[in-house]
């Protein structure tokens, strides 16, 4: 087990240089990162349009394609599969190549698989808008989009694992544990859920249980693991210190895998009571690994946080993502039970994990990776756009999270007493909170746009450097 990131001394003689590693990453990682950010923008706009309909029902009325019941799942699935997972693949490939000191296997094949992934997501989003949603949260893509999605994932993951196998730096750093676990976890849960829900259909409420199990594993294990992989790579790098307390990290990693998969079913009602009880207990227990991992990060960065915040564009994103991870874990443990059942509170959790915990960490990492792979510099060309992306994303995540959470608490108070009027309290009464959510999604779209423009500027400069000289 390493306490520091691999040093150049330990790499064997055949190891490729950093420039060679980055050259092999360039095409697939940049393609995945760009498409991911584009889907973030598109998904945020779809979610914005859907959220307006919650208090302005006449908005875009009269067309089945953009009714709330289709727009909202389209937005959530675009954000999950288009943005979150796609960006996660970009980060995973880059981390494997960098930490394993190895050139990516089949960069062109990876790019083609990524292209198919994007086509499948597009087909899936249009499928939902056309009314073919399956009806299971976070798994709404119809089978004709889900199967190509799985196939292109299989290609990406297989090439990623082959790359990992060929690494010249044999020691696996913590980030790679998380990447490896998430890369293996995702196909297992996806095939289980699709097999049991769309193929061999399990009877009755077992379907709802399987769907809830899948959704939780996707958020709590897969996306959180990619987030932690990013945190454990970039935080020690930003503060220029080795990772503190590796024993704690190891314990946190295994406990997160063991406990995390049990959360997420605490708000089902029409199921045997032991299921929400077990899940509620796991919601509380999962605080332990999350705290263990975050404490180790804090020990690594302690004393240099303020300095790194000012000097490092990536670190700001990561710090907020880590705080949000702690916040969402604690909030779910305390309030995620019976009281907030059937309210926007669960929506808040999904959106904070997607856009806040994973989203901010990924945007931060991309602010480091993209300039390395394009211009070769440390920072993206426009500092102003980087600042805009950070502050807009931060504001957007907080607005969406706080807006949905407050609306959830109001609804919970109404739901707890038959005297309070349902329509006035839980539907029209939360309009002000939902307006905040709309603004938040707008800010998220602005952040994605700012990053995309910055990305475009870097790519343009890169092209000018390469081809401009020859001209």
């Amino acid at each position: 087990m390493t306490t520091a990131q691999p040093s150049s001394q330990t790499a064997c003689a055949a190891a490729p240089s950093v420039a060679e590693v980055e050259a092999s990453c360039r095409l697939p990682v940049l393609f995945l990162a760009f498409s991911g950010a584009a889907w973030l923008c598109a998904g945020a706009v779809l979610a914005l349009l859907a959220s307006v309909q919650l208090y302005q029902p006449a908005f875009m009325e009269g067309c089945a394609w953009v009714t709330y019941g289709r727009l909202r799942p389209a937005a959530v699935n675009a954000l999950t599969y288009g943005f979150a997972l796609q960006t996660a693949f970009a980060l995973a490939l880059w981390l494997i190549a960098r930490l394993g000191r190895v050139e990516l296997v089949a960069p062109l094949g990876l790019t083609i698989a990524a292209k198919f992934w994007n086509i499948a997501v597009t087909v899936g989003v249009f499928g939902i808008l056309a009314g073919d949603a399956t009806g299971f949260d976070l798994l709404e893509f119809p089978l004709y989009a889900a199967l190509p999605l799985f196939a292109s994932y299989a290609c990406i993951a297989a090439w990623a694992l082959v790359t990992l196998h060929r690494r010249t730096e044999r020691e696996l750093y913590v980030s790679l544990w998380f990447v490896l676990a998430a890369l293996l976890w995702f196909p297992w849960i996806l095939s289980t859920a699709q097999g049991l829900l769309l193929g061999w259909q399990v009877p009755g409420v077992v379907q709802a249980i399987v769907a809830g199990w899948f959704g939780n594993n996707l958020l709590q294990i897969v996306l959180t693991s990619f987030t932690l992989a990013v945190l454990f790579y970039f935080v020690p790098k930003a503060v220029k210190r080795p990772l503190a307390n590796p024993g704690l990290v190891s314990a946190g990693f295994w406990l997160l895998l063991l406990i995390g998969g049990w959360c997420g079913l605490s708000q089902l009602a029409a199921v045997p009571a032991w299921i929400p009880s077990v899940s509620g207990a796991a919601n509380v227990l999962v605080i332990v690994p999350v705290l263990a991992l975050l404490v180790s990060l804090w020990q690594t960065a302690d004393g240099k946080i303020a300095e790194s915040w000012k000097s490092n564009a990536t670190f700001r994103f990561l710090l907020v993502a880590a705080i949000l991870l702690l916040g969402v874990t604690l909030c779910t443990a305390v309030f995620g039970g019976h009281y907030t059942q059937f309210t926007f509170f669960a929506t808040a959790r999904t959106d904070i994990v997607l856009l806040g915990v994973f989203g901010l960490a990924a945007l931060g990492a991309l602010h480091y990776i993209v300039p390395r792979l394009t211009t070769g510099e440390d920072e993206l060309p426009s500092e102003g756009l980087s600042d805009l992306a950070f502050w807009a994303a931060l504001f957007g995540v907080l607005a969406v999270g706080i807006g949905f959470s407050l609306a959830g608490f109001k609804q919970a108070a109404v739901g707890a007493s038959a005297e309070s009027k349902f329509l006035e309290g839980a539907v029209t009464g939360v309009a002000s909170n939902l307006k905040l959510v709309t603004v938040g999604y707008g800010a998220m779209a602005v952040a994605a746009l700012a990053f995309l423009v910055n990305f475009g500027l870097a790519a343009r400069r890169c092209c000018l450097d390469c081809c401009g000289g020859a001209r």
Partner: protein
Amino acid sequence: MRYGPIIGAGALFSLACSWAALVMAPQLQLGALAPAPIPNTSDVHPALRPGLAAQGAEVYRSLGCYQCHTRQVRQDALLFGARLNDVGSNANTINLELPGSGKTNLVNLDLLIALAKARPDLGIAKVTVPPPLLADTNVVAALGQFTANLTLLKHADDKLDVVRPTSGPTVNDVVGNRPAEIFVKVAPETAESVVKLLTDSGAKAELVICNLGPDIERGWGARRSVARDFVNDTPVLLGSLRVGPDLASIGMRAPEKFAAPWKFAGTNTAAEVEHHLLVHLYNPRLLAPASTCPSAAYLFDKQKPEVRFAGEPLALPGKDAPVFPKHNARALVAYLLTQRTDVGLLEAPTPAVAKAAAPAKP
């Protein structure tokens, strides 16, 4: 750590644990769940949906209604009550009407004492007997027993410091007004002991259940939803967010329990419920001005469609011209009308409805 396979095996083991607990165990427990027979009928609950309603389930899924509506009624507690159905008869039951008048007005004197013991908050009045009846030795004996029992009751009251109100309702009124709820929302032991007390006095009493919770008080269902309610559904659209009311029993919901104040002038027929739901689909704001439910006007034709069976036009409230519901609109409404939780199950009983008071004998 140098070996990737260790991490892979560990991850597989962790996932297998969570899979065994949250996927396999529920399947073993619920996979064989079958519809339950409804007592005294040849029907089962839940019944298979008729064709139109089954198509409606697809419309419900396709339009994403489950994004805003749940179909799960919650229940906080199950409490019990005691209900008096009939006075019954025993040796101490006397008829207050004159013999030969052909009328009966039975008074179970033991029941009055038993009820007074059960309900210290009620007064107890003397039973006045028409003088001609006093010739009957049975009546005299019963009255004598009653007076003795009253004295014993008074002693017991004094011992327990019970002061019975001198005005207000008395046990005699309660007994005369059947079926009477003697207790509601009490612990099972209390309800059971009261029922025993009443049945020992010869009366016919029963234990009733009270399903409690905000959802049930709102009238969204008679009992909680359980796994068995969904054995015929695929996909199972439970819903996880209530931006609209719960739909678990919209097919049997009392008219005034809809989100919007909505009352029929006459009786609540299936055709009227269907009409209400169709209008709601066409434009929810016609029925509830504050509703945020999106209109499904695309499920309706403004002009009479050029098909052979266009169906009856839908009359809209206000000045709007009638519209023609398309097949999908009718299917969706048919599906909504199959949503019901009025059938009691072993795991989720429904309260027995009190039988209407027997018409007074002439």
